[in-house]
Protein backbone atom coordinates (compact mmCIF):
# COMPACT_ATOMS: atom_id res chain seq x y z
CA UNK A 1 0.00 0.00 0.00
CA UNK A 2 1.27 3.46 -0.82
CA UNK A 3 2.25 5.58 2.14
CA UNK A 4 1.41 8.83 0.38
CA UNK A 5 -0.62 11.39 2.31
CA UNK A 6 -3.11 12.50 -0.33
CA UNK A 7 -5.42 14.20 2.14
CA UNK A 8 -4.17 16.30 5.02
CA UNK A 9 -6.46 17.96 7.58
CA UNK A 10 -4.60 21.31 7.41
CA UNK A 11 -2.51 21.25 4.23
CA UNK A 12 -5.45 19.99 2.16
CA UNK A 13 -5.53 17.45 -0.67
CA UNK A 14 -2.72 16.90 -3.16
CA UNK A 15 -3.32 18.23 -6.64
CA UNK A 16 -3.25 15.89 -9.65
CA UNK A 17 0.39 15.21 -10.45
CA UNK A 18 2.08 13.60 -13.41
CA UNK A 19 3.12 10.00 -12.75
CA UNK A 20 6.71 9.09 -13.62
CA UNK A 21 8.31 5.67 -14.04
CA UNK A 22 11.80 5.06 -12.72
CA UNK A 23 13.99 2.13 -11.80
CA UNK A 24 15.63 1.21 -8.53
CA UNK A 25 18.00 -1.77 -8.61
CA UNK A 26 16.29 -2.97 -11.80
CA UNK A 27 12.70 -2.87 -10.49
CA UNK A 28 10.23 -0.32 -11.85
CA UNK A 29 8.53 2.15 -9.48
CA UNK A 30 6.08 5.00 -9.90
CA UNK A 31 6.80 8.46 -8.58
CA UNK A 32 4.83 11.66 -8.85
CA UNK A 33 6.23 14.91 -10.14
CA UNK A 34 7.88 16.79 -7.26
CA UNK A 35 8.89 13.66 -5.37
CA UNK A 36 12.48 13.00 -4.43
CA UNK A 37 14.02 9.58 -5.01
CA UNK A 38 13.92 9.03 -1.23
CA UNK A 39 10.27 10.10 -0.99
CA UNK A 40 9.07 7.98 -3.91
CA UNK A 41 10.90 4.88 -2.68
CA UNK A 42 9.67 5.32 0.90
CA UNK A 43 6.12 5.65 -0.43
CA UNK A 44 6.63 2.27 -2.09
CA UNK A 45 7.93 0.75 1.14
CA UNK A 46 11.61 0.78 0.17
CA UNK A 47 13.75 1.94 3.07
CA UNK A 48 17.16 0.49 2.31
CA UNK A 49 18.83 2.78 -0.21
CA UNK A 50 22.37 1.41 0.00
CA UNK A 51 24.59 -0.83 2.05
CA UNK A 52 27.58 0.24 4.09
CA UNK A 53 30.55 0.09 1.73
CA UNK A 54 32.60 -2.04 4.10
CA UNK A 55 30.22 -4.03 6.33
CA UNK A 56 27.26 -4.39 3.98
CA UNK A 57 24.85 -3.20 6.69
CA UNK A 58 21.64 -1.67 5.28
CA UNK A 59 21.27 2.13 5.29
CA UNK A 60 18.42 4.53 4.51
CA UNK A 61 17.71 8.23 4.85
CA UNK A 62 18.78 9.97 8.04
CA UNK A 63 18.54 13.78 7.75
CA UNK A 64 16.49 14.08 4.53
CA UNK A 65 17.88 17.58 3.83
CA UNK A 66 21.25 16.82 2.28
CA UNK A 67 23.57 17.11 5.28
CA UNK A 68 24.42 13.53 6.18
CA UNK A 69 24.87 11.75 2.81
CA UNK A 70 23.45 8.55 4.30
CA UNK A 71 21.06 8.24 1.32
CA UNK A 72 23.73 8.39 -1.38
CA UNK A 73 22.84 6.34 -4.47
CA UNK A 74 23.97 6.04 -8.09
CA UNK A 75 21.74 7.88 -10.57
CA UNK A 76 22.18 7.11 -14.27
CA UNK A 77 25.73 6.01 -13.55
CA UNK A 78 26.71 9.00 -11.40
CA UNK A 79 27.77 7.97 -7.88
CA UNK A 80 27.15 9.75 -4.56
CA UNK A 81 23.90 11.43 -5.49
CA UNK A 82 21.71 12.30 -2.51
CA UNK A 83 18.35 10.55 -2.85
CA UNK A 84 16.75 13.11 -0.51
CA UNK A 85 17.76 16.12 -2.66
CA UNK A 86 17.16 14.70 -6.12
CA UNK A 87 13.79 14.79 -7.86
CA UNK A 88 12.73 11.73 -9.81
CA UNK A 89 12.63 12.21 -13.57
CA UNK A 90 11.01 9.96 -16.17
CA UNK A 91 13.13 6.90 -16.92
CA UNK A 92 15.72 7.64 -14.23
CA UNK A 93 17.86 4.65 -13.33
CA UNK A 94 18.79 4.49 -9.64
CA UNK A 95 20.99 1.85 -8.05
CA UNK A 96 22.13 1.25 -4.49
CA UNK A 97 25.82 1.15 -3.81
CA UNK A 98 27.45 -2.16 -2.99
CA UNK A 99 30.16 -3.44 -0.68
CA UNK A 100 33.60 -2.32 -1.83
CA UNK A 101 36.79 -4.35 -1.50
CA UNK A 102 39.14 -3.44 1.35
CA UNK A 103 42.32 -5.19 0.24
CA UNK A 104 44.55 -3.18 2.56
CA UNK A 105 42.61 -3.92 5.72
CA UNK A 106 44.43 -6.32 8.05
CA UNK A 107 42.46 -9.55 8.29
CA UNK A 108 39.75 -7.85 6.23
CA UNK A 109 37.81 -8.54 3.10
CA UNK A 110 40.70 -9.16 0.72
CA UNK A 111 39.32 -11.29 -2.05
Amino acid sequence: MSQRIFHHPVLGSMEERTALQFQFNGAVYTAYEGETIAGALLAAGVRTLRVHEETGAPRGIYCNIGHCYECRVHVDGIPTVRACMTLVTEGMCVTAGSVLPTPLKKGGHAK
Partner: protein
Amino acid sequence: MNDVLVIGAGPAGLSAAIAAARQGLSVKIVDEFYRPGGRLLGQLHEEPDGVWWNGLAEAARLDQEARALGVNISCGVSVYDIARCDDRWRISTTEGEWESSLLLIATGASEAAVPVPGWTLPGVMSIGAAQVMTNVQRVRVGKKGVVIGVNILSVAIARELQLAGVHVEQLILPPLSEVSGKAGRPHEIMRSLLRVAHLAPSPVIRLGSKLMGSAWMQRLAVAFFPSKGVRMWDMPIHLRTAALEIVGTSQVEGVRTARVTPEGLPIPGTEQLIPADFVCIAGGLSPLAELAAIAGCPFAYVPALGGHVPLHDEYMKTPLPGLYVAGNITGIESAKVAMSQGTVAGLSMAQASGLLADDSLLSQAQLQVKRVRQNATIQFHPDIAAGRELVGQMAAAWTAR
Protein backbone atom coordinates in the same frame (compact mmCIF):
# COMPACT_ATOMS: atom_id res chain seq x y z
CA MET B 1 27.64 40.26 -12.00
CA ASN B 2 25.10 40.65 -9.23
CA ASP B 3 25.47 43.25 -6.47
CA VAL B 4 24.53 40.69 -3.86
CA LEU B 5 24.92 36.93 -3.56
CA VAL B 6 22.82 35.15 -0.94
CA ILE B 7 23.57 31.60 0.17
CA GLY B 8 20.38 29.97 1.44
CA ALA B 9 16.81 30.46 0.19
CA GLY B 10 15.20 30.08 3.61
CA PRO B 11 13.22 32.68 5.56
CA ALA B 12 16.30 34.86 6.20
CA GLY B 13 17.83 34.63 2.71
CA LEU B 14 14.55 35.29 0.88
CA SER B 15 13.63 38.20 3.16
CA ALA B 16 17.08 39.74 2.71
CA ALA B 17 16.86 39.38 -1.07
CA ILE B 18 13.44 41.05 -1.09
CA ALA B 19 14.63 43.97 1.07
CA ALA B 20 17.79 44.48 -0.99
CA ALA B 21 16.02 44.16 -4.35
CA ARG B 22 13.41 46.72 -3.28
CA GLN B 23 16.25 49.23 -2.84
CA GLY B 24 17.47 48.55 -6.35
CA LEU B 25 20.21 45.98 -5.82
CA SER B 26 20.48 43.01 -8.16
CA VAL B 27 20.38 39.81 -6.13
CA LYS B 28 21.11 36.16 -6.79
CA ILE B 29 20.25 33.40 -4.27
CA VAL B 30 21.67 29.90 -4.33
CA ASP B 31 20.28 26.97 -2.36
CA GLU B 32 21.16 23.31 -2.22
CA PHE B 33 17.57 22.06 -1.95
CA TYR B 34 15.44 21.54 -5.05
CA ARG B 35 12.97 24.23 -4.02
CA PRO B 36 13.19 27.49 -2.05
CA GLY B 37 11.91 27.89 1.52
CA GLY B 38 14.57 26.22 3.64
CA ARG B 39 13.29 25.07 7.00
CA LEU B 40 10.05 26.98 6.48
CA LEU B 41 8.97 24.15 4.22
CA GLY B 42 8.09 21.61 6.88
CA GLN B 43 6.69 23.98 9.50
CA LEU B 44 3.08 23.54 10.50
CA HIS B 45 1.77 24.44 13.91
CA GLU B 46 -1.12 26.15 15.60
CA GLU B 47 -0.30 29.44 17.30
CA PRO B 48 -1.84 30.21 20.71
CA ASP B 49 -4.41 32.44 18.96
CA GLY B 50 -5.62 29.41 16.99
CA VAL B 51 -4.14 30.51 13.63
CA TRP B 52 -2.09 27.89 11.78
CA TRP B 53 1.50 28.75 10.88
CA ASN B 54 1.87 27.15 7.46
CA GLY B 55 5.55 27.30 6.47
CA LEU B 56 4.84 26.02 2.95
CA ALA B 57 2.52 28.93 2.28
CA GLU B 58 5.00 31.41 3.82
CA ALA B 59 7.79 30.03 1.63
CA ALA B 60 5.64 30.32 -1.51
CA ARG B 61 4.75 33.92 -0.61
CA LEU B 62 8.41 34.94 -0.11
CA ASP B 63 9.48 33.10 -3.26
CA GLN B 64 6.86 34.88 -5.38
CA GLU B 65 7.68 38.27 -3.89
CA ALA B 66 11.42 37.81 -4.49
CA ARG B 67 10.92 36.68 -8.10
CA ALA B 68 8.53 39.55 -8.79
CA LEU B 69 11.35 41.92 -7.73
CA GLY B 70 13.70 40.27 -10.21
CA VAL B 71 15.68 38.17 -7.73
CA ASN B 72 17.41 35.22 -9.41
CA ILE B 73 16.89 32.03 -7.37
CA SER B 74 19.06 29.03 -8.27
CA CYS B 75 18.05 25.82 -6.51
CA GLY B 76 19.87 22.51 -6.46
CA VAL B 77 23.21 24.34 -6.30
CA SER B 78 25.75 23.51 -3.57
CA VAL B 79 28.37 26.02 -2.41
CA TYR B 80 31.64 24.41 -1.41
CA ASP B 81 34.09 27.29 -1.15
CA ILE B 82 34.21 31.00 -0.46
CA ALA B 83 37.28 33.11 -1.14
CA ARG B 84 38.17 36.78 -1.11
CA CYS B 85 39.65 37.98 -4.37
CA ASP B 86 40.51 41.63 -4.91
CA ASP B 87 37.64 43.52 -3.31
CA ARG B 88 35.01 40.87 -3.95
CA TRP B 89 33.77 37.53 -2.65
CA ARG B 90 33.95 34.54 -4.93
CA ILE B 91 31.78 31.51 -4.23
CA SER B 92 32.54 28.16 -5.81
CA THR B 93 29.45 26.11 -6.53
CA THR B 94 28.46 22.93 -8.33
CA GLU B 95 27.29 25.20 -11.17
CA GLY B 96 30.41 27.33 -11.41
CA GLU B 97 31.93 30.37 -9.74
CA TRP B 98 30.16 33.62 -8.97
CA GLU B 99 31.44 36.91 -7.60
CA SER B 100 29.91 39.88 -5.84
CA SER B 101 31.05 42.63 -3.52
CA LEU B 102 28.31 41.82 -0.99
CA LEU B 103 27.73 38.30 0.31
CA LEU B 104 25.07 37.10 2.73
CA ILE B 105 25.41 33.69 4.35
CA ALA B 106 21.98 32.50 5.50
CA THR B 107 22.53 28.77 5.76
CA GLY B 108 20.30 28.23 8.79
CA ALA B 109 20.77 25.38 11.21
CA SER B 110 21.41 21.68 11.24
CA GLU B 111 20.22 19.03 13.67
CA ALA B 112 22.67 17.74 16.21
CA ALA B 113 23.21 14.01 15.75
CA VAL B 114 22.71 11.93 18.90
CA PRO B 115 24.18 8.48 18.37
CA VAL B 116 22.03 5.71 19.88
CA PRO B 117 23.03 2.05 19.41
CA GLY B 118 21.24 0.80 16.29
CA TRP B 119 20.70 4.28 14.82
CA THR B 120 21.99 3.36 11.37
CA LEU B 121 19.09 0.93 10.74
CA PRO B 122 16.78 1.97 7.89
CA GLY B 123 13.70 3.54 9.49
CA VAL B 124 15.74 5.62 11.95
CA MET B 125 15.89 9.27 10.98
CA SER B 126 16.26 12.74 12.43
CA ILE B 127 13.04 14.39 13.56
CA GLY B 128 13.48 17.03 10.84
CA ALA B 129 13.69 14.28 8.22
CA ALA B 130 10.28 13.01 9.32
CA GLN B 131 8.91 16.56 9.16
CA VAL B 132 10.05 17.10 5.57
CA MET B 133 8.88 13.64 4.50
CA THR B 134 5.45 14.20 6.04
CA ASN B 135 4.66 17.81 5.19
CA VAL B 136 6.71 18.45 2.05
CA GLN B 137 7.01 15.05 0.35
CA ARG B 138 3.65 13.97 1.80
CA VAL B 139 4.83 10.44 2.53
CA ARG B 140 4.29 8.65 5.86
CA VAL B 141 7.54 7.60 7.49
CA GLY B 142 5.89 4.59 9.13
CA LYS B 143 2.89 3.38 11.05
CA LYS B 144 4.05 3.52 14.62
CA GLY B 145 7.11 5.32 15.92
CA VAL B 146 9.17 6.33 18.89
CA VAL B 147 10.77 9.76 19.23
CA ILE B 148 14.07 9.82 21.11
CA GLY B 149 14.76 13.28 22.55
CA VAL B 150 12.21 15.50 24.27
CA ASN B 151 12.48 19.16 23.31
CA ILE B 152 10.27 21.86 21.87
CA LEU B 153 11.11 20.88 18.30
CA SER B 154 10.47 17.16 18.77
CA VAL B 155 7.14 17.73 20.52
CA ALA B 156 6.01 20.12 17.77
CA ILE B 157 6.98 17.72 14.97
CA ALA B 158 5.50 14.72 16.76
CA ARG B 159 2.21 16.63 16.68
CA GLU B 160 2.63 17.21 12.96
CA LEU B 161 3.13 13.47 12.45
CA GLN B 162 -0.05 12.69 14.40
CA LEU B 163 -1.90 15.25 12.31
CA ALA B 164 -0.89 13.36 9.15
CA GLY B 165 -2.10 10.06 10.59
CA VAL B 166 1.25 8.72 11.74
CA HIS B 167 1.07 7.23 15.22
CA VAL B 168 3.72 8.34 17.73
CA GLU B 169 3.82 5.79 20.52
CA GLN B 170 6.15 7.55 22.96
CA LEU B 171 8.59 10.43 23.27
CA ILE B 172 11.50 9.26 25.42
CA LEU B 173 14.98 10.41 26.41
CA PRO B 174 18.25 9.41 24.72
CA PRO B 175 20.62 7.20 26.70
CA LEU B 176 22.72 9.24 29.12
CA SER B 177 26.12 9.84 27.54
CA GLU B 178 28.79 12.46 26.94
CA VAL B 179 27.02 13.30 23.68
CA SER B 180 23.44 13.44 24.91
CA GLY B 181 24.50 15.46 27.99
CA LYS B 182 21.58 17.40 29.44
CA ALA B 183 19.14 15.79 26.99
CA GLY B 184 19.53 12.53 28.91
CA ARG B 185 18.69 14.02 32.32
CA PRO B 186 15.00 14.12 33.29
CA HIS B 187 15.64 17.13 35.61
CA GLU B 188 17.00 19.25 32.80
CA ILE B 189 14.22 18.29 30.41
CA MET B 190 11.59 19.16 33.00
CA ARG B 191 13.17 22.60 33.37
CA SER B 192 13.23 23.26 29.66
CA LEU B 193 9.68 21.97 29.13
CA LEU B 194 8.36 24.27 31.84
CA ARG B 195 9.50 27.22 29.74
CA VAL B 196 6.98 26.29 27.09
CA ALA B 197 4.30 24.82 29.36
CA HIS B 198 2.34 28.08 29.17
CA LEU B 199 1.50 27.05 25.61
CA ALA B 200 0.00 23.73 26.66
CA PRO B 201 -3.66 23.27 25.77
CA SER B 202 -4.32 21.67 29.15
CA PRO B 203 -5.15 24.18 31.94
CA VAL B 204 -3.84 21.66 34.47
CA ILE B 205 -0.38 21.71 32.90
CA ARG B 206 -0.47 25.50 32.53
CA LEU B 207 -1.39 25.90 36.19
CA GLY B 208 1.06 23.21 37.21
CA SER B 209 3.86 24.98 35.38
CA LYS B 210 3.25 28.12 37.42
CA LEU B 211 3.35 26.20 40.67
CA MET B 212 6.55 24.47 39.65
CA GLY B 213 8.74 27.55 39.74
CA SER B 214 10.89 26.29 42.60
CA ALA B 215 13.70 23.82 42.09
CA TRP B 216 12.50 21.43 44.80
CA MET B 217 9.03 21.27 43.26
CA GLN B 218 10.61 20.37 39.92
CA ARG B 219 12.67 17.65 41.59
CA LEU B 220 9.55 16.29 43.22
CA ALA B 221 7.68 16.29 39.91
CA VAL B 222 10.48 14.38 38.19
CA ALA B 223 10.74 11.91 41.06
CA PHE B 224 7.03 11.13 40.89
CA PHE B 225 6.71 11.40 37.10
CA PRO B 226 4.08 8.77 36.22
CA SER B 227 5.46 5.64 34.60
CA LYS B 228 2.74 5.85 31.94
CA GLY B 229 4.00 9.30 30.97
CA VAL B 230 1.88 12.41 30.69
CA ARG B 231 0.04 13.80 27.75
CA MET B 232 1.47 17.25 27.15
CA TRP B 233 0.14 18.98 24.00
CA ASP B 234 -1.61 15.63 23.56
CA MET B 235 1.76 13.89 23.20
CA PRO B 236 2.81 10.85 25.24
CA ILE B 237 5.91 12.25 26.93
CA HIS B 238 7.94 9.86 29.07
CA LEU B 239 10.53 11.84 31.02
CA ARG B 240 11.60 8.87 33.12
CA THR B 241 12.12 6.45 30.22
CA ALA B 242 15.27 6.35 28.10
CA ALA B 243 16.24 4.46 24.95
CA LEU B 244 18.97 1.88 25.44
CA GLU B 245 19.11 0.57 21.90
CA ILE B 246 17.23 0.56 18.61
CA VAL B 247 16.71 -3.03 17.47
CA GLY B 248 15.99 -4.71 14.14
CA THR B 249 17.77 -6.76 11.47
CA SER B 250 17.15 -5.18 8.09
CA GLN B 251 15.13 -2.25 9.46
CA VAL B 252 13.72 -0.86 12.72
CA GLU B 253 11.62 -3.31 14.70
CA GLY B 254 11.56 -1.60 18.07
CA VAL B 255 13.32 0.30 20.82
CA ARG B 256 14.69 -1.27 23.98
CA THR B 257 14.04 1.12 26.85
CA ALA B 258 14.48 1.34 30.61
CA ARG B 259 13.07 3.48 33.37
CA VAL B 260 15.69 5.94 34.54
CA THR B 261 16.45 7.74 37.80
CA PRO B 262 15.84 11.52 37.96
CA GLU B 263 19.53 11.83 37.04
CA GLY B 264 19.05 9.69 33.94
CA LEU B 265 20.65 6.41 35.05
CA PRO B 266 18.85 3.22 33.94
CA ILE B 267 17.05 1.32 36.73
CA PRO B 268 17.92 -2.41 36.60
CA GLY B 269 15.01 -4.75 35.91
CA THR B 270 12.84 -2.11 34.16
CA GLU B 271 13.78 -2.92 30.58
CA GLN B 272 11.05 -3.07 27.94
CA LEU B 273 10.82 -3.46 24.19
CA ILE B 274 8.53 -0.99 22.42
CA PRO B 275 7.62 -2.32 18.96
CA ALA B 276 7.97 0.40 16.29
CA ASP B 277 8.58 0.60 12.55
CA PHE B 278 10.27 3.99 12.67
CA VAL B 279 12.33 6.02 15.12
CA CYS B 280 13.05 9.75 15.10
CA ILE B 281 16.11 11.12 16.85
CA ALA B 282 15.80 14.72 18.05
CA GLY B 283 19.08 16.27 19.13
CA GLY B 284 18.12 19.91 18.78
CA LEU B 285 19.47 22.51 16.36
CA SER B 286 22.78 24.28 16.02
CA PRO B 287 23.88 27.01 13.59
CA LEU B 288 25.15 25.71 10.24
CA ALA B 289 28.15 27.98 9.92
CA GLU B 290 30.93 26.16 8.04
CA LEU B 291 30.82 28.55 5.10
CA ALA B 292 31.35 31.56 7.40
CA ALA B 293 34.36 29.74 8.85
CA ILE B 294 35.73 29.08 5.36
CA ALA B 295 35.33 32.78 4.59
CA GLY B 296 37.53 33.47 7.63
CA CYS B 297 34.90 35.00 9.87
CA PRO B 298 35.70 35.06 13.63
CA PHE B 299 33.32 33.07 15.83
CA ALA B 300 31.90 33.05 19.36
CA TYR B 301 30.73 29.99 21.26
CA VAL B 302 27.38 30.90 22.79
CA PRO B 303 25.32 27.97 24.13
CA ALA B 304 22.21 30.19 24.41
CA LEU B 305 22.33 30.65 20.62
CA GLY B 306 22.88 26.97 19.91
CA GLY B 307 26.67 26.77 19.53
CA HIS B 308 29.34 28.53 17.46
CA VAL B 309 28.06 31.64 15.70
CA PRO B 310 29.89 34.05 13.37
CA LEU B 311 30.51 37.43 15.00
CA HIS B 312 28.16 40.10 13.67
CA ASP B 313 26.68 43.43 14.69
CA GLU B 314 23.10 44.72 14.80
CA TYR B 315 23.32 45.43 11.07
CA MET B 316 23.96 41.68 10.55
CA LYS B 317 27.42 42.59 9.28
CA THR B 318 30.41 40.44 10.17
CA PRO B 319 33.85 42.00 10.83
CA LEU B 320 34.87 40.96 7.29
CA PRO B 321 34.27 43.51 4.49
CA GLY B 322 30.98 42.96 2.65
CA LEU B 323 30.14 39.74 4.52
CA TYR B 324 26.73 39.51 6.19
CA VAL B 325 24.86 36.80 8.09
CA ALA B 326 21.17 36.37 9.01
CA GLY B 327 18.81 33.75 10.34
CA ASN B 328 19.66 30.66 12.34
CA ILE B 329 23.35 30.81 11.43
CA THR B 330 23.40 33.65 14.00
CA GLY B 331 21.51 31.69 16.68
CA ILE B 332 18.57 29.31 16.95
CA GLU B 333 15.28 31.21 16.92
CA SER B 334 11.96 31.04 15.10
CA ALA B 335 11.48 31.56 11.36
CA LYS B 336 9.79 34.90 12.11
CA VAL B 337 12.97 36.19 13.77
CA ALA B 338 14.99 34.87 10.80
CA MET B 339 12.72 36.78 8.39
CA SER B 340 13.10 40.03 10.32
CA GLN B 341 16.89 39.58 10.52
CA GLY B 342 16.94 38.97 6.76
CA THR B 343 15.19 42.29 6.18
CA VAL B 344 17.85 44.05 8.30
CA ALA B 345 20.65 42.36 6.35
CA GLY B 346 19.08 43.30 3.01
CA LEU B 347 18.68 46.94 4.01
CA SER B 348 22.21 47.04 5.49
CA MET B 349 23.62 45.83 2.19
CA ALA B 350 21.61 48.51 0.37
CA GLN B 351 23.04 51.12 2.75
CA ALA B 352 26.57 49.84 2.19
CA SER B 353 25.99 50.30 -1.55
CA GLY B 354 24.72 53.84 -1.03
CA LEU B 355 21.29 52.87 -2.35
CA LEU B 356 19.26 53.15 0.85
CA ALA B 357 17.28 56.34 0.36
CA ASP B 358 15.76 56.36 3.85
CA ASP B 359 17.97 55.26 6.77
CA SER B 360 14.97 55.06 9.07
CA LEU B 361 13.89 51.90 7.22
CA LEU B 362 16.95 50.18 8.64
CA SER B 363 16.44 51.34 12.22
CA GLN B 364 12.78 50.32 12.01
CA ALA B 365 13.79 46.89 10.76
CA GLN B 366 16.24 46.53 13.66
CA LEU B 367 13.49 47.40 16.13
CA GLN B 368 11.25 44.87 14.43
CA VAL B 369 13.76 42.07 15.13
CA LYS B 370 13.60 42.86 18.85
CA ARG B 371 9.82 43.11 18.77
CA VAL B 372 9.43 39.75 17.03
CA ARG B 373 11.86 38.18 19.51
CA GLN B 374 9.96 39.55 22.49
CA ASN B 375 6.62 38.37 21.13
CA ALA B 376 7.88 34.92 20.21
CA THR B 377 5.56 32.24 21.56
CA ILE B 378 8.42 29.78 21.72
CA GLN B 379 11.76 30.77 23.15
CA PHE B 380 14.34 28.19 22.19
CA HIS B 381 16.58 29.30 25.06
CA PRO B 382 15.94 31.58 28.08
CA ASP B 383 19.16 33.56 27.56
CA ILE B 384 18.85 34.45 23.86
CA ALA B 385 18.85 38.21 24.44
CA ALA B 386 21.95 38.00 26.66
CA GLY B 387 23.65 35.73 24.12
CA ARG B 388 22.97 38.20 21.32
CA GLU B 389 24.29 41.05 23.47
CA LEU B 390 27.53 39.11 24.02
CA VAL B 391 28.02 38.45 20.30
CA GLY B 392 27.47 42.15 19.56
CA GLN B 393 30.08 43.16 22.15
CA MET B 394 32.59 40.65 20.81
CA ALA B 395 32.01 41.89 17.24
CA ALA B 396 32.60 45.49 18.35
CA ALA B 397 35.77 44.48 20.20
CA TRP B 398 37.02 42.62 17.14
CA THR B 399 36.40 45.55 14.83
CA ALA B 400 38.07 48.01 17.26
CA ARG B 401 41.17 45.83 17.45
